[in-house]
Every structure is written in C-alpha cells, then in structure tokens.
C-alpha cells in the first residue's frame, strides 16, 4: 500500500502498524520529544502499536527543534 510520510510518498507492506513503521525509523514509544499524526489526527504513543495503516494514509512525525 502507499502512504504519505512527512510529505513523501512511501510504499508499505499490507498490515504494517504505525508502531512497526516508526520502529523502522528508530522511533519507539520511549523516544522523547516525538509526536505522530495520522490523517491530521494526533495518535497518542500508547496507541501506536494498535493502529493499522491503510492505503492513502498521511502520516506526520514531528519532534522539537530550535525555534523562536
């Protein structure tokens, strides 16, 4: 299936969970200062494991950076 991750089209295997996808990017529910939205809705970290990604999903993963 195809999703959009931080603005980039990305191909995933069917049945990938959000948690699984994030782990591939070294992000676990222990990673500090990170948050995730799927289709413009924030997904609390405790739910990452349960969320099954669907074709066309848009995923935003953010963290804190320097800002004024």
């Amino acid at each position, binding site marked *: 299936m195809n999703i959009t991750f931080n603005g*980039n089209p990305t191909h995933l295997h069917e049945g990938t969970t959000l948690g699984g996808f994030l782990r591939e990017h070294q*992000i676990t529910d222990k990673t*500090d200062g990170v948050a995730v939205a799927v289709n*413009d809705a924030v997904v609390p970290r405790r739910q990452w494991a349960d969320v099954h990604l669907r074709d066309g999903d848009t995923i935003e993963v*953010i963290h*804190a950076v320097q800002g*004024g």
Partner: protein
Amino acid sequence: MAESARDPLVIAGREFHSRLIVGTSRYPDPHVMLEALAATGTELVTVAVRRVSLTDGSKESFIAMLRGKYSILPNTAGCYTAKEAVLTAQLAREALDTNWVKLEVIGDQETLFPDVPELLKAAEELLADGFVVLPYCNDDPITCRKLSDMGCAAVMPLGAPIGSGMGIRNPYNLRIIREQCSVPMIIDAGVGTASDVAVAMELGVDGVLLNTAIAQAKHPVQMATAMRLAADAGRLAYHAGRIPRRLYATASSPEDGLIGHTD
C-alpha cells in the same frame, strides 16, 4: 536581583522569576545556546516542532538539552492557517507533555506579520481544547482585547517585525494595549539590543520574548547577560516612578550661597 524577585511574572497561575522568554534558534552552536539561555536567567524557552528527517538519526538530542533546565514553550511558527496551527499545537502537546503554546499564525513569509482572523480562530479552538495560549499578535488594541477576552493567558504584541532588531516601533499603541489589557502583556519580537528591553519594560509590559537579538549578536552570551540586566533595570525603573519630562533644565545644585554674588 532581589527587587525583581519580589515581583514575579505570573502566567496562567505559574510564577516565573525572570521576565524574559527566550528562543532557542539561530545560535552559532548548541553550547553557546545553553550558555546564553543560562545568562538570561530565563525559566521558559521556546521551541518549534518540525518533521523528523529520515536521514538524520537523533530525534531526541535537541530537546534533551533543555529538559529539566527550562519549561518548554512550543511555538506554531510557520503556520499560515488555524488548521495547521491547531494540529501543530496538538502534536507539540503530545511530543512535549505541555499544554502551553506560543501561537503564531503568520500571513506572509517575508514579514512574518500575523494573520488576524486565522489567529483568532486558532486561539479559540486551542482554548476549547484546553491549551494555555500565548498568541503572537500585532500591536493592535482590538485584537489584543479579543484574545484576552476569549481567555488567552497573555497577549504578545510585536515591538517590531521578527528578526528586524528595530526595537519598539510604536510605543503609543503598546501604551494603549497596556491600559486596556488585564492579562499579562509580553513584547514578542523586534528587540535588537538591551535598551529595547528596558524601554519595553518601562512601558509597563510584563515581559519580553526575544531570540535573534541574542543568538545573532557577535557575542551571544554577553548580550544575553545584557538582556537580563536590562529587563531588571526597566522593570525597576517602571516601579520606581520616573521624573516627568521637561523642555528644559531645573538646577540640580542649590541656587543660593553662590560665590562672588553680593546678597
């Protein structure tokens, strides 16, 4: 500073013993940033939230530098619409375990002036969602009053455009806002040097948010110290009650008993 300690800045029931809110952007390097933040005496620092990059490994290093040392105030910099700003604030809340947000909804890439209707809309939604909202806004008394009436924890009118270093361009509007506004009033953006902070504080504002003036100074840490001193100086002077302005002089030495004058 004993005097200013007696007079803390209170936002949303939380006490701060510094009247400066300081940004974390545009320092020569993280080490200088940390030294400069410490030198300002601030307890509240702003951060932005951005997409993690696929390439860069560390997702934690930056925030880890600040954790424990400072309260974090995430901003919504770069958002042009209420929708973007609200999602950004919600992500920041999830990422940083804080419901405080410096709400920034801009209308223009170049000048970074706020978009008033989108700002008001975003503030309303975020307040409804339980956020403590500190909005960056124009030096516009009406917009400031609306923001404070709807329940924002402070109003943060600009002194001059972000990064301009032009100081306090329109003290008159700020005085009107000060007169009309019951919530804390923070000057956000425009500061170029220490005297700008003193001037702002002498207008009776409650605090100043600044970043570029420190981060991009030739010697950021020294400028950071200057800003801390200027904030204390301006606040004290405001409370001390300045002398009135006069077109000209009144002697400061006694005018009787002068030598060589026959009484």
